[in-house]
């Protein structure tokens, strides 16, 4: 199953949750936000939200700016 994660196509095992993606790519959960197909997913739902085929996932965090 492939999905887009931060603009890159990724091969993901079936059953991958948003929480697993955050842990893998961000290393920590504090200060991170997740959009799934242009909708905010609250952190309380990360571990029960599965990434589906062709989903668009954005994992964001704060950087210097503004």
């Amino acid at each position, binding site marked *: 199953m492939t999905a887009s994660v*931060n*603009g890159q196509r990724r091969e993901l095992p079936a059953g991958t949750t948003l929480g697993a993606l955050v842990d893998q*790519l*961000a*290393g920590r959960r*504090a*200060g*991170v*936000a*997740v*959009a799934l197909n*242009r909708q*905010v997913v*609250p*952190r309380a739902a990360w571990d029960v939200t599965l990434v589906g085929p062709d989903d668009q996932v*954005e*994992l*964001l*965090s*704060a*950087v*210097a*700016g*503004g």
Partner: protein
Amino acid sequence: MSGSDALAPLALAGRQFRSRLLLGTGGIPNLAVLERVLEASGAEVATVALRRVDPEARGSILDVLARHRVEVLPNTAGCYTAAEAVLTAQLAREALGTDWVKLEVVADDRTLLPDPLELLEAAEQLCALGFLVLPYTTDDPVLARHLEQVGCAAVMPLGAPIGSGLGIRNPHNIELIVEQARVPVVLDAGIGTASDAALALELGCDAVLVASAITRAEDPPAMAAAMRRAVEAGYLARRAGRIPPRTLARASSPRTGLARLA
């Protein structure tokens, strides 16, 4: 300080701050410089942007800001439509646990000027969603009034385009915005050097937000110290009541008792 040189606190979006200098962190060379800029500036509010997680990133700006007890103000930089800006603000709230948002909705990359129609639409939606909205806006007094009417916690008119360092191009408009506003006015964008920041406060702005003028200065901590003093001086000068400008001279030495020497 006390009495006539006392600096009244800044009431902004339900909080009180001693400093009237808000720091934009964009352009800061690294987190070590940011630490020194925070100390030198005395800023108690600092902006951040939301970007894709970088697995290689070392150290978090959030840790630095937390260590200095600085209020984090996420922006919506990079958004061109109300829809993008609203989603970005919602993501910032989720990531950072704050209802504050510096709302930026720009029209194009060349000028980075606010798109008034998209900005007002986004402001209205975000206020309805319970955000404390601090909109980056043009120096148009009418737009500032509309932003206040939809519930924004402040208005943040530009002095000149972002990063231009051109100073306050239309002081008269800034005065008109200050005159009518019942929310704090924060001059945002265009500051080039300390005198620009002082002028903003002299015109009656409640605070200034400075990014590039500090972060891209040759010596950012030194410029941060200059801005801190400029903001204090401008605020005190505004309260002190300047003399009205005149077209001709008015002697300051007495005319009486003048010797006949001619």
